[in-house]
Structures are given as structure tokens and as C-alpha cells.
């Protein structure tokens, strides 16, 4: 008993120290930076300003943010359309096959996603494998422009982020008791009604979790935008990266990251609310 107390203290100090030093402090630095003025020689000057936040409303930047969100939304929708049925089928498979397919979903994680994005670039480049194959088959006469397009970015994001949609959905489908579907059919509901009134509401937490796990990185994965999107199809992540590394405007970069963090926090809060709505009794009736 005597030994437990110091051990507990040490563990807690380590954890809290870690969080304070490596999470809270850097974030506070970012917050602080976002209210300071840019300086060419020393990156920042100790002069408080709100100008960085006002610049966020510059139409040029708003257009980039909007386009980035649009691509992220399309990516999320694609992931959901593919991931939802996939996760459902995966959960219905025989116990013997399941682990292997699940393994196939997880395998890509073993290769860094940056490497996989470069691999994709090689595939869809002007003289890449896809174009060469199509040319070889005689289906096209001139190489297609696949790289540096909006579609390339969306496909790249989709490819990298799909597992993040499948895994939470799979987890929730595993919890969905098959006898609930039988009960629905027994009570006279057809396939569509069963889906809309039983399957969809009960898997909603998984849908929201999956969408968040895809949507949030989809606006920030700057290297996908860099490698596949060229100069036109920027993600918010690219803008932030450019401010810090290329434009050397740390305060503005900090302001954009704070905007992004805030947007994510709001989405997470929405998720928390939606889960509570489904789990908590009465809430349904009150809102209806």
C-alpha cells in the first residue's frame, strides 16, 4: 500500500508533464503567435494585433478554404458510400473469413501514407502506368491529364482515408444484433423500412465517427494536396504549411491553424451531442 502512492504520483506527474509540455504549451504558443505581428528578421514581433484574423476573411483565402472543404466533403461522402456497405458486408461474413478481410483493410497502414501518395502520383502521371495501359490498349490516343486535378486530390484523400471510415462503421455493425433486423421483418417492415428505421439510426454513431475521422484529416493532409493537386487544388493544410515554411508569416499561419482547430472542436462537440441524443432516453421525443 505504501508503494502504491509514490508510484501513482510518478505516473500522474509523467502523464500531466507530457501533456503540459508537448500539447498545451505548443498550442498556447500557437494561440499567442496568432495575435502577434509578423517580422521578417525574427519571424514575430511583440506587438499585439487582430490583423491576422481579419485576413482570414480575405476573399482569396475564403475561396481556398471553401474549395478545401468542398473536396473534403466529397471525399467523406465517397468514403461513406463505399465504406458503409463494405463494413456491413464485412460484419455479416463468417467468423472464419472476417479477420483476413479486416487485415486487408489495415495492411495499408503499414506503409506511410506519404509514400503511398507518391506511388499514386507515379501511377497517374502523364506517362504513368494508367495512361500507358490505356494507350497500349488503344482506348485513348493522347495521355489523359489525371495528375494535378481536383479529382486526383479527392481520389488520393479517399484512398488514404477510407480505412478510417470502415473501421468505426465495422465496429458499430458488429454491435448491431441480427435479431433486431429479424424483429423488424417479423413486424411487417420491408428491407428499405428496416434500413431507414432500425439500421440507420442504430449505426448513426458509427457514421458520424467515421465522417469526422475522414473529414478532419481531409482538410489538413497538405502533402496529398502538394503531391497530387499542384498549385490550384490547395487544402487548408497547404495554406498553413505555406505560411510557416514559404511565406514565413508565422502569425497568419497560426491564425489559420486556430481556425481549423476550432472547426474541428465544433464538429467533435456535434458528434458528442449526437451520440448523447441516440443513447440518452427521452431526448428523441423532446426534439421531435
Amino acid at each position: 500500500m505504501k508503494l502504491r502512492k509514490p508510484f501513482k504520483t510518478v505516473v500522474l506527474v509523467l502523464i500531466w508533464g507530457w501533456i503540459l509540455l508537448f500539447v498545451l504549451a505548443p498550442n498556447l504558443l500557437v494561440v499567442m503567435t496568432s495575435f502577434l505581428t509578423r517580422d521578417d528578421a525574427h519571424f514575430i514581433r511583440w506587438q499585439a494585433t487582430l490583423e491576422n484574423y481579419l485576413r482570414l476573411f480575405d476573399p482569396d483565402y475564403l475561396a481556398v478554404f471553401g474549395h478545401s472543404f468542398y473536396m473534403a466533403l466529397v471525399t467523406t461522402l465517397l468514403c461513406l458510400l463505399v465504406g458503409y456497405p463494405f463494413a456491413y458486408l464485412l460484419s455479416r461474413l463468417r467468423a472464419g473469413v472476417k479477420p483476413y478481410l479486416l487485415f486487408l483493410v489495415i495492411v495499408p497502414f503499414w506503409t506511410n501514407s506519404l509514400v503511398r501518395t507518391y506511388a499514386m502520383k507515379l501511377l497517374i502521371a502523364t506517362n504513368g502506368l494508367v495512361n500507358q495501359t490505356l494507350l497500349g490498349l488503344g482506348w485513348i490516343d493522347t495521355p489523359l491529364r489525371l495528375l494535378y486535378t481536383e479529382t486526383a486530390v479527392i481520389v488520393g484523400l479517399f484512398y488514404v482515408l477510407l480505412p478510417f471510415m470502415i473501421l468505426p462503421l465495422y465496429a458499430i455493425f458488429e454491435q448491431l444484433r441480427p435479431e433486431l433486423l429479424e424483429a423488424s421483418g417479423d413486424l411487417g417492415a420491408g428491407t428499405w423500412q428496416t434500413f431507414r428505421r432500425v439500421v440507420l439510426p442504430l449505426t448513426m454513431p458509427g457514421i458520424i465517427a467515421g465522417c469526422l475521422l475522414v473529414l478532419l484529416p481531409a482538410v489538413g493532409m497538405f502533402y496529398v494536396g502538394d503531391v497530387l493537386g499542384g498549385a490550384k487544388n490547395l487544402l487548408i493544410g497547404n495554406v498553413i504549411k505555406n505560411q510557416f515554411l514559404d511565406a514565413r508569416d508565422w502569425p497568419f499561419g497560426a491564425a489559420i491553424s486556430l481556425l481549423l482547430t476550432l472547426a474541428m472542436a465544433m464538429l467533435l462537440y456535434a458528434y458528442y451531442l449526437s451520440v448523447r441524443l441516440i443513447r440518452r432516453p427521452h431526448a428523441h421525443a423532446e426534439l421531435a
Partner: protein
Amino acid sequence: MTKPPAYRKIRVLVTAALMLQDKQKIIELKGVRKSFGGRMVLPTLDLDIFHGEFVTLLGPSGCGKTTILRLIGGFEQPDAGQVLLGGEDITRLDPNQRPVNTVFQSYALFPHMSVFDNVAYGLRAEKRPRAEIEERVARVLAMVQLEDLARRKPDQLSGGQQQRVAIARAVVKGPRVLLLDEPLSALDYKLRKQMQNELKRLQRELGITFVFVTHDQEEALSMSDRVVVLQEGRVEQVGTPRDVYESPRNLFVARFVGEINVFDVEVCELRDDRHLIGEVEGQRFELHGEISAFASGQRIHMLLRPEDMRLLPEDSERGLPGQVIERNYKGMTLETLIRLDSGKELLASEFFDESDPDFDYRLGERVQVSWVPSWEVLLADETA
């Protein structure tokens, strides 16, 4: 509470009318076969279920009773044979097209819906008008005494309450047959007894056919109009609870439905078409039963329920000598395990009668074991 005579007369008439209707078959299983992944669950099953009766499918786990229920409900398709409902072939219909509803073993209540929404589900699937839904749901909720809990979610209810919601949800559509898959197995003893009575009351009130699956023979006997005893997908016996208990058709039924003592008997002489002289444990007795199939010299079985056994003092002239080796107090009855001198062990169960001087035998005391004459059941030796 005594009922006025006029009421009783009407009741008799109604009962008679219902009995006429009883003869109508509501469900017929014809040559139904089912196997799962090469394992034969139902070899070939024929079973008729009549209108308005409470039928119990009774058997040990794996006997195919749940499969039969799922075939009627439409959750499984037979490999061969037909399922008829009211004379119509429903073998290939989906569950949502059958006028049959199920109370699932796990209740299968929708966790995201209130009690009201759960019960209304089937009516909403039929797209009934809102007012009708509210009225009908309120009526069945009153029937199962859940009016006050209509807005609760299933996870805020006790097991017994969840059970009632499951029943209400299944009967609200007025199905022609209600299928119940071991619905009481998750409840504790006292609640189970209470729900047994409620289910019987509900079945009388609704007047629809209940097909009830259980492995609990006591439950089967106390609830049913008819019991179907199953083993490995075969129907071993169909009959009233009394038939099944008092006149089991074979050793499996006898052993599965209640406790039983089995004796080997050698037929010595056939007296007439109801009586024979048989040798039991080296003594000759006149035995009574359905004996037309037996011949002199044949080896048969004699079955006796523990409550039909009588223990007599050692000096009695009639009976099989033995020794008391165990006594179990069961509240209303006293169970005695006796080892006969031949080594055979018997179970006797007697009601308490404090005034009977012979009643209280001590452990180790020698007794004579007898039985109530003509209550024995004679069966051919199946192993022969």
C-alpha cells in the same frame, strides 16, 4: 368471485363454439426438412397446429424446436416440404408477408425507440392512420399493464417489463399465430411463474394460436393445451399435458417429461386385453395397461412416476424390499431415494401427511416399495 349463472351458460356456449373452431388447422408443416451446413436438424417433420390452441414445442436443446418456430416465422426456408397457414402455402413468403408475429428469446426490442414506438412499429410499417395506431398501442399496453411506461426506453425497464413490451409489440398487429421462442428463460423463478399465468390469460383474451418453445417441462405442462415432445428433429409424442405425463409413448418422453422410475418386466401370462402377470424384480404382479402388442415371455418396461410410489413398513406383505438411502425435503413433498436389494435405485415422492405414522422413514431404514395399482405404464422394450 362467483359468476352469475347466465354468464356461465354463455361461457359454455362460447367454449363449445370455440371447440368447433378448434378443429380447424391453422398451421400445417408437411414433410418439412431442414439441415444447417450438412447437419440434419429436422429429418422429416409433419405437424398440425389448430386454431386457438396453446401448443408447446418441448425438447432438449438442439432438438429443432427453435428451427420449427423460425420456419413458421419465415426466418428459415425448409430444404423440402411445405409450410401452410390457414390452408395457404406460405413456404416461400418473407417474414414481413406472414400474418404471424414472434416474441424473441432476447426480446429484440429496438433500443433507440420508446416503448410506445416499439409497439407501434408494426402498425407504422403497415402505414396505419395515426389515430388508429395510438388507440391500438394504448390498448395492448393496457393489456400488459405498461401504460405508464410508454415513454421509457427499453434499457430503463426491468427484464419482466421488457418481456411485456416484446409481447405487446408482437400481438398489436393481431397476428393469427403468435410464436414465442423461450420467452421466459431469462426471468427469475417467481417472475416466470407470474408471466406464465399472464401469457395464458392473454391467449384466452386474444383467442389466437400460441406456439411456445421451451425446454422446461414444468412450464410446458402447466401452460399448454397440447405438448409436442421433440428429440433430434423427430416428434416423439403429441398430446395434452396429461397424456404426455401420464401415458408417455416411449422412454424418451417418459424421462424428459418429469422424473420417472423404469423397471424391467418379463411378461409371464396375458390375463385379458388389459391385464397381464409380469415378473418385476423377481416377484410376480398383476399389471395393467395397453398390452395388446405384448406376448408371453416378452421383456417390457414398466414406468412409474415418483408420486405413484408408496413406501410401506418392512413387515408389509406386498412390495419390493429395499433401504432408504436419501431423503430430500422439498417443501410440499418429501423425496426418498430407495435402493432395492437388487441394487436398483428408485425415487419416491410423497405429500406431507403429519398424521401418517408410516410416513417418516429414517435414513437407512428398511422398507417395502409398492405403487398405486393400475397407475403403472407398460411400454415395449425399444432396445430389443
